[in-house]
């Protein structure tokens, strides 16, 4: 069942087109990431959905109701803000019970529900504290508790983990995903971190220059990127000139073929190549070994190539050595157009 439907939403700031006829359907209970570099329009889209910004055109439909002209307080959703936006003059409990109070609950009832929400994020003991005296991770959890306490159908998250350090961020990614499954709330998660999006999402919408370039499951986004932008933005990509059928290399770039570094192999002799593989000669320009994986950077003509393998490199692959880079044509993905 479609919970959120976005139709042809556009938004401009003077001459800058922040959203260019964006359409998107989100299913009930889905975890969708809006992923893209800064300035791609992902935060603008989130604000338009939340009602903090009005779109120039298009419609937003939540659960069958057109909310395009409704103010934020009348939309059936809640938001976790990037800097948490906790009310500094209130305690943690007051922050979390603010939502239920506004929904008409008595003070006592609101506090009971706030306490429940705080328990869910593991901060029940912090209720009487001031959010100003808390660590970033704790504030993050309070913001989360405040946003889920009213049990919204849709939760918007604006780069909620970006201010946390790497260790904590990894842990929160897992917790957030578990919480989403447990509550069955639809999440729309804005991030510029592709690993984060990959790890958590059911589907990822990759955005660029105000448009959604591709929306698919993480694996499809990685294996079958639709555009050059998606191929470059998600993971690393070797772009090779291919014939349309993807079976052989082309002399003058006909079609762009995307080959991920882990699918490119390095051979010292041409006869080591398995049957049916394609190859091109290259010169090693650099190599690195990082905790379990090795990277080999090569130059082939005016093209730079990147191969990744597990384990330590053989000793004879050094800078300046002529080698043969080979790959199975089944691993290459031809970009449309």
């Amino acid at each position: 069942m479609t919970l959120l439907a976005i139709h042809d939403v556009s938004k401009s700031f003077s001459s800058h087109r922040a959203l260019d006829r964006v359409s998107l359907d989100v299913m009930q209970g889905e975890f969708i990431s809006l992923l893209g570099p800064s300035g791609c329009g992902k935060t603008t889209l989130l604000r338009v959905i939340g009602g903090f910004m009005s779109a120039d055109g298009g419609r937003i439909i939540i659960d069958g109701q057109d909310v395009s002209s409704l103010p934020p307080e009348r939309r059936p959703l809640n938001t976790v803000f990037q800097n948490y936006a906790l009310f500094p003059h209130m305690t943690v409990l007051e922050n979390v019970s603010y939502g239920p109070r506004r929904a008409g609950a008595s003070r006592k009832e609101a506090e009971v529900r706030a306490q429940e929400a705080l328990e869910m994020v593991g901060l029940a003991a912090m209720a009487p504290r001031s959010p100003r005296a808390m660590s970033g991770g704790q504030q993050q959890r309070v913001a989360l508790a405040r946003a889920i306490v009213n049990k919204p159908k849709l939760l918007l998250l604006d780069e909620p983990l970006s201010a946390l350090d790497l260790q904590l961020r990894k842990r929160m990614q897992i917790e957030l995903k578990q919480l989403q499954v447990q509550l069955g709330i639809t999440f729309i998660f804005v991030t510029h971190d592709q690993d984060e999006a990959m790890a958590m999402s059911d589907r990822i919408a990759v955005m660029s220059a105000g448009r959604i370039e591709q929306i698919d499951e993480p694996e499809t986004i990685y294996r079958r990127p639709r555009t050059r932008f998606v191929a470059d933005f998600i993971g690393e990509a070797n772009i090779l000139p291919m014939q349309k059928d993807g079976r052989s290399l082309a002399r003058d770039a006909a079609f762009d073929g995307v080959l991920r570094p882990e699918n490119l192999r390095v051979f010292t002799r041409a006869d080591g190549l398995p049957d049916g593989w394609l190859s091109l000669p290259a010169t090693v320009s650099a190599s690195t070994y990082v905790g379990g994986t090795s990277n080999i950077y090569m130059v082939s003509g005016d093209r730079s190539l990147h191969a990744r393998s597990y384990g330590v490199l053989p000793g004879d692959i050094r800078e300046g050595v002529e080698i043969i880079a080979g790959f199975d044509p089944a691993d290459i993905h031809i970009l449309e157009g």
Partner: protein
Amino acid sequence: MFTSRLTLLWLLALPLCVFTAFFLIPLGVVFVASLTTQDGQFTLSQYGRVLLDGYHWQVIAVTFRLAILSTIICVVLGYPLAWYLVRIVKWRSWRRACVIMLILPLFTSNIVRSFGWMVLLGRTGLVNDALLGVGLIERPIRFLGTETGILIGLVYILLPFTVLTIGNALARVEPSLEHASRDLGAGPLRTFCSITFPLTMHGVMAGGTIVFSMAISAYVTPALLSGGKVTVLAMLAFQQYSTVFDFNYGGALSITLLTFTMALIGISSWMTRIGVHEKKGN
């Protein structure tokens, strides 16, 4: 550590000397004078003269009424003005122009401004002419020599202080806090009462305190706009110093004014703190 502390002491010495020489000593002189007779004997009779006289209580009442009303009016007018400047004006040059217009009167002399108001508020002044012309009133309103006239003059001079302090506080309120409030189901009015206003309360208090202490000690504006018909405490003290040359009695009047002022400011800030604590229980 030793040298840096010594340097610090030297750095502090100058402002400390200035403060002592120009603030504490004159205040001390006034205080000592208020407690002595003209030939230097200790006495409390000056305070007796001030506090046991019904007329003085009447003057104190007028003084405080004017100061409290100016403060309230300045805050009530200043808040929307500050809101306009900080939240509504998008064009930076226009905002700058507004701020300059607001503080421009502060560059001219207090006396010039008060005479300006005398011209405007007079029986045949611009204000009465306009009101008569539009047909809102039938006979000219008497502003000069009334508390209303003085109030207009005081609010005009003191309004910039509340606009600037409240504006400053408003500009520091994160927009995302108001968004969060709206997101959690609060309408614009509820958001203002629960989030924006409490977060700008310190600006309101700061502006209010400045306005109150300046209004209560104001001399020029009440003296010129009263036409001798309304008297405030500062005018009485000035009279004693400048015409009667009774420094002891004048000193007692000044110290009385200071004491009442401090007490009122103390009570109001204490009440705000209590209010904040009450709010915590909400």
